[in-house]
């Protein structure tokens, strides 16, 4: 049972444009949602989070949107930079972290 789904394994965008990464979830018990990013040969690192009682959280170029009725969240990166190229994991947090399968973002110069 995949509680967190990232249906796009990969995404390519041009430098300077917006990157939108999407995620769907099924577990209504998640109280926080997080995005982690992972570079090759490194562990995942925390990027941004959102409480389940909020619908938006912004941190610099990164904004996460939560639509609880649709059980959907998205991560917006504006403007995208080549250094943003990484795997992005969508995560639901209850007693433990439940990871999606990740989306490989490639930002083309």
């Amino acid at each position, binding site marked *: 049972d995949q509680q*967190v789904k990232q249906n796009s394994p990969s995404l390519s965008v041009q430098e300077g444009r917006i990157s939108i990464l999407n995620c769907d979830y099924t577990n209504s018990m998640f109280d926080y949602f997080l995005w982690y990013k992972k570079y090759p*040969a*490194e*562990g*995942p690192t925390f990027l941004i989070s959102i409480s389940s009682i909020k619908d938006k959280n912004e941190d610099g170029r990164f904004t996460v949107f939560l639509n609880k009725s649709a059980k959907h969240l998205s991560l917006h990166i504006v403007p995208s930079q080549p250094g943003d190229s990484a795997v992005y994991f969508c*995560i639901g947090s209850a007693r*433990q*972290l439940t*990871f999606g399968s990740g989306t490989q973002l490639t930002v083309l110069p």
Partner: protein
Amino acid sequence: EAGVAQSPRYKIIEKRQSVAFWCNPISGHATLYWYQQILGQGPKLLIQFQNNGVVDDSQLPKDRFSAERLKGVDSTLKIQPAKLEDSAVYLCASSFSGSGYEQYFGPGTRLTVT
């Protein structure tokens, strides 16, 4: 501040052999986690320690996997005997407490079972 350290970085073994992974968390972090990441999937929690006690090991295949965290600092994860489907990256993470969600991950150990 030093990050989470793991060793070895890579390991290749034959099926039915045993293997052990080591993790040293960030100093002062009470909570330690072991995750398994199979190719194409997200990390899956195997076991969570709070100091040297087990908080959650519900997804640990206890017939072949074991983990310990002596003295509440370093931890080892062992697989005995290994199966082909154990091929994965094994990630160790730590956090200051178990109630927060920000975890700090090590670089992982890539295990290949042939």
